[in-house]
């Protein structure tokens, strides 16, 4: 089990990671989401022991990283965004070297290297020099190296970058399989990738952990807005004026292009339970001579909508899963 408490990394006055804390179970896949510069890679580097935190604790299987770094590192497999590979080595030499680094006896190193080669399907390139391999293969060699020693925590920073679609599917399958044996922490910008393999999500923004829970929990907790999609037939200017008047003080309004020139699409982002649909119906009923409301559909915000809301500060943000409010509602 991984326990992270009040983890902080500061560079001068910049808080790259600002007091984050979470707990991960022994066998689960956790997705670390956030925009560029959110602090994901710094967090991962601290968890892997590459960077020392300014303050805070990392405890893996009851061992504290600050007190027993070697023991903790022995339990961690780490694949950075750019796989750390020796380009002049063959795949086999590289994996044997990682075995030696992880304290695996020489007589067991061959078996361990073959095991990870099989998992990543790279056995057929084992005798090839890494520098001559494609980016996808290099990524897989880096992944294989991270799996050596069967770690209890596997940290993967953008693991599918540079892979072709089939390889992405294979890696996702592998991550799903591994998450039944160990804790897998994955960072990515790609929401669909995280959603497809992770049962537990962490959303970071500007060094802070803004959401922690399953996708369902997060969308439920932060679903403060509902989306209303409407299409209106009639003079565009009048339709826009009418919709703007209805949305005034209630939420935000976006106009969408429609193939038909006399039809205008609108998306309203309004607070939950504000009976906006009725208001729109009535508003357009008053203009039924000039405008026709063709459709009106209330849409449940997806995880992507919630992610955008959280990272753009539209939600009331709860620090971790506690009740402390660290942001304010807008629009």
């Amino acid at each position, binding site marked *: 089990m991984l326990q992270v408490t009040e983890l902080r990394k500061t560079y001068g006055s910049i808080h790259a990671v600002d007091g984050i804390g979470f707990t991960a179970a022994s066998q689960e896949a956790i997705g670390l989401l956030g925009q560029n510069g959110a602090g994901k890679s710094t967090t991962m580097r601290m968890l892997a022991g590459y960077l*020392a935190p300014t303050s805070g604790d990392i405890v893996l299987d009851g061992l504290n990283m600050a007190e027993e770094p070697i023991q903790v590192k022995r339990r961690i497999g780490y694949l950075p965004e750019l796989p*750390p590979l*020796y380009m002049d*080595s063959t795949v086999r*030499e590289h994996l044997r*070297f*990682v075995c030696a*680094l992880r304290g695996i006896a020489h007589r067991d190193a061959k078996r361990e290297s073959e095991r990870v080669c099989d998992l990543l399907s790279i056995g057929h390139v084992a005798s090839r020099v890494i520098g001559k391999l494609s980016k996808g293969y290099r990524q897989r060699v880096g992944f294989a190296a991270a799996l050596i020693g069967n770690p209890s925590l596997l940290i993967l920073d953008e693991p599918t970058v540079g892979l072709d679609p089939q390889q992405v599917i294979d890696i996702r399958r592998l991550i799903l399989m591994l998450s039944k044996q160990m804790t897998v922490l994955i960072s990515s910008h790609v929401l669909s990738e995280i959603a497809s393999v992770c049962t537990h999500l962490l959303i970071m923004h500007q060094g802070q952990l803004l959401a922690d829970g399953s996708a369902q929990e997060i969308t439920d907790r932060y679903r403060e807005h509902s989306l209303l999609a409407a299409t209106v037939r009639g003079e565009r200017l009048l339709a826009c004026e009418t919709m703007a008047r209805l949305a005034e003080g209630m939420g935000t309004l976006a106009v969408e292009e429609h193939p038909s020139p006399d039809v205008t699409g609108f998306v309203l982002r309004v607070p939950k339970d504000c009976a906006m649909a009725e208001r729109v119906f009535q508003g357009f009923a008053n203009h039924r001579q000039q405008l026709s409301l063709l459709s009106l559909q209330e849409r449940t915000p997806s995880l992507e909508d919630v992610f955008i809301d959280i990272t753009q500060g539209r939600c009331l943000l709860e620090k971790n899963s506690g009740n402390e409010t660290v942001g304010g509602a807008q629009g």
Partner: protein
Amino acid sequence: MNGIFAKEWRHLFNTMTGYVFVAMYLALSGAVFAITNLFSQSGDIKSYFSVFVTVSVLIFPILTMGSFSEERKQRTDELLLTAPVTYATIVLGKFLATLCAFLLPMMLTMLYPALLAVYGFHAPAATVGNYLGLVLLASACIAIGQFLSLLTDSQLVAAMMTYSVFALFLLAGASLSMATDPALQSILRFLAIAKHSEGFAYGVFDAMELVYYLSITALFLFLSVYLLERRRLV
């Protein structure tokens, strides 16, 4: 440490670095031996070493310039520094592999005293002393070069820095006879790293010089470990 030693050794000889070093070492030592002994028809091995010790300072940066700088550039330092090994193990593993890469061509040059011995010029104490002095000098220079390669992610910059520092050492040795002030003399003598092996050249085992070289080696290995740890913190 075995793993890091083996990887470093393989890296030196998987790339051109090791071969360039061995070639330059053998070319320079061969030229020096030819000039100081063969052409001048001298059977004194000390004349070979007195020149080669100074010249050898110029070839150490070839071995050390990429030691840490290349790891940083290729981001392979992330693999080393997140592995369950101490920083001291990493630094020592690299140091010993580099030192062994130096010993390889050095052992080949043992042919020179053997050749002189064939012609009746036996000087076993001076030969052993000179080789000991050279190994001690090499270990100090390699430790310094490796430390300097930690300061940058460019091999070229690391090499320039190492050459500059070693040039300073050679300059200190050259200006030693010109200095009259005793304080300045002792500073120059301390900096003149190659001069400290002169005692060994005469087959004299000087414990002070041994301590000098071992201290410099230990100091720079320690500084390398310290810098790695420091970098993790900031």
